[in-house]
């Protein structure tokens, strides 16, 4: 990793905790040359217009992701409903053919509140930690969390209303999520009660799917209404501590999105569809510090940008896998 990428790596961690991405102070010569070549290049502009005119809308990764998300949650539902016992429990804690799996954030809340850790809790948490280190941290959010899917549909309504100019997206300070993470951890530790679990839409929706709906869904509905009419994807962007927990796991994960400067026209389509557009600051004209850049840990690896990019500048990458072949 070059010195510039290393600096960016640490800056992206700060961005995850709520810092605003900043303009780079230094850019590698190769990237600098590319930025210069793109400036006012008529051929390139013509090429861009051509590419945009012929770009076909793909939903490849979105469809794969939705299928995975629905399959995972369906496995929970069917394991109980049909008593096939493959994936027993709910998203907070479960057993996959007997192996304990425990959600990292729920486990943390319980450990802080109860201050006593039994072996099963430790084993389940360890298994899930290894799993999501391998799969990409916040991959959990977009590929498994059932609230994410509901919020994605709510987002579609929000974007439709915004296009009709009936509403505007009211942005909120992203540092709030870090504040919530600390607050909920402190509350669990101080009061000995896992208060976040009582309002976690992930847990509520997961349990509602498996054990039948309850009034707790009203809270989830309130969140969705807030996201539709007021602030786009507010819970996932500004509040959910689960996202931050898995984001931290994603720092060391080899699965990520890679950005290639050469193909990019800097039109920003990817940033428009992204749940966490601050991780894509590097696609802004003149910002990329190297010709190839891995996207930071707050990225949920949802693949919407990969689908959207008309030139293939963004793609999935497994770090180290290219070295093997």
């Amino acid at each position, binding site marked *: 990793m070059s010195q510039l990428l290393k600096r960016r790596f640490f800056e992206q961690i700060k961005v995850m905790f709520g810092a605003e991405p900043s303009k780079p102070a230094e850019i590698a010569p190769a990237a600098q040359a590319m930025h210069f070549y793109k400036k006012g290049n008529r051929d390139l502009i013509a090429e861009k217009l051509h590419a945009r005119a012929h770009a076909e809308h793909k939903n490849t990764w979105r469809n794969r992701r939705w299928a995975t998300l629905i399959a995972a949650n369906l496995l929970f539902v069917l394991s109980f409903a049909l008593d096939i016992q493959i994936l*027993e429990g709910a998203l907070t*804690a479960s057993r996959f053919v007997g192996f304990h799996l425990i959600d990292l954030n729920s486990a943390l809340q319980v450990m802080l509140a109860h201050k006593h850790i039994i072996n099963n809790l430790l084993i389940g948490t360890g298994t899930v930690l290894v799993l999501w280190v391998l799969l990409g941290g916040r991959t959990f959010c977009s590929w498994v969390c059932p609230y994410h899917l509901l919020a994605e549909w709510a987002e579609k309504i929000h974007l439709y209303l915004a296009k009709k100019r009936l509403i505007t997206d009211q942005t*909120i300070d992203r540092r709030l999520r870090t504040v919530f993470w600390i607050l909920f951890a402190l509350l669990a530790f101080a009061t000995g009660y896992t208060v976040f679990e*009582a309002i976690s839409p992930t847990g509520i929706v997961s349990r509602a799917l498996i054990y039948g709906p309850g009034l707790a869904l009203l809270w989830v509905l309130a969140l969705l209404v807030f996201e539709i009419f007021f602030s786009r994807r507010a819970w996932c962007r500004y509040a959910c501590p689960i996202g931050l927990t898995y984001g931290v796991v994603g720092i060391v994960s080899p699965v990520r999105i890679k950005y290639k400067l050469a193909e990019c026209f800097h039109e920003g389509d990817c940033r428009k569809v992204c749940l966490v557009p601050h991780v894509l600051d590097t696609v802004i004209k003149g910002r990329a510090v190297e010709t190839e850049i891995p996207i930071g840990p707050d990225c949920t690896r949802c693949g919407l940008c990969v689908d959207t990019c008309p030139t293939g500048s963004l793609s999935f990458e497994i770090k180290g896998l290219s070295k093997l072949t």
Partner: protein
Amino acid sequence: MSDDDQKPVAGPTPPLSKAKRQTNRRRFLRTVLLTGGVLGAALSGFLPLIYSQRKRLRPPGALDETDFLASCIKCGQCVQVCPVQAIKLADLIDGMGVGTPYIDPRRQACDFSCDAVQCVLACPTGTLTYHKPEFLTVRPGADLAAKPILLAKEKDPEPTLNMTERMGVARLTRPEACLAIQGKGFKGQTRGPDFKGTMRYMDVDRWKPIRIADHPYDVAECDLCARECPIKGAISIETVFAPDGSKRKSPVVHEPCVGCGVCEMVCPVEPSCITIEAREVWKT
């Protein structure tokens, strides 16, 4: 086009315009709004803790209420393994913590038809446990004098249930309505034909609980609570002296009672004459 504007600017930030300042202020206010909203909702999540003095029947092997609320991860694995679906998850208005397991014995009691207290085995966090960690105290009278003997496996090499603390204690709360005390018998389906509760009947099938409605009774003197109690020596019909000196029959609860609630479920009188006092301890 000059080379100069290729250099990214990272100099001192210019002063903010009035419009930008206003945008920032509004954003700050929205941030405060969301903080307040989420924290407000979170605080309502604390209600079960405030009400934790109120008694609730938790599954077997449950820690005391505050420890229970601290450690339960709300996954429902205990719900999934219960062969009679006695365990339910609490909803928002139940005031016991969203997603925490509880038992409503009148609707469906825990009859130990799993033989091994499966819910304890399923619990990933030790909220339901065979062995309470040493730093947690046992309330006097909550501990059982001996491991309870499960009548269903009395002839097995290991006849006991792996339980050291009781869930509660059964109490005759409406003696005036008790059929046994009145010397009355009972014939037919206890709880009526529409009652959905199920139970294991050893004379029917040890491994397959059936609906109580499919198992009608015909007894000359009602003894359903004692007859169906799954624990050895927990309840019996005794001859007692009434206040006026006359002899009569009455259900009497004994120390081995674990508070499973089968007696409450099968009592044919509406509402039940015998009820479980959740988290209650044995008082001599």
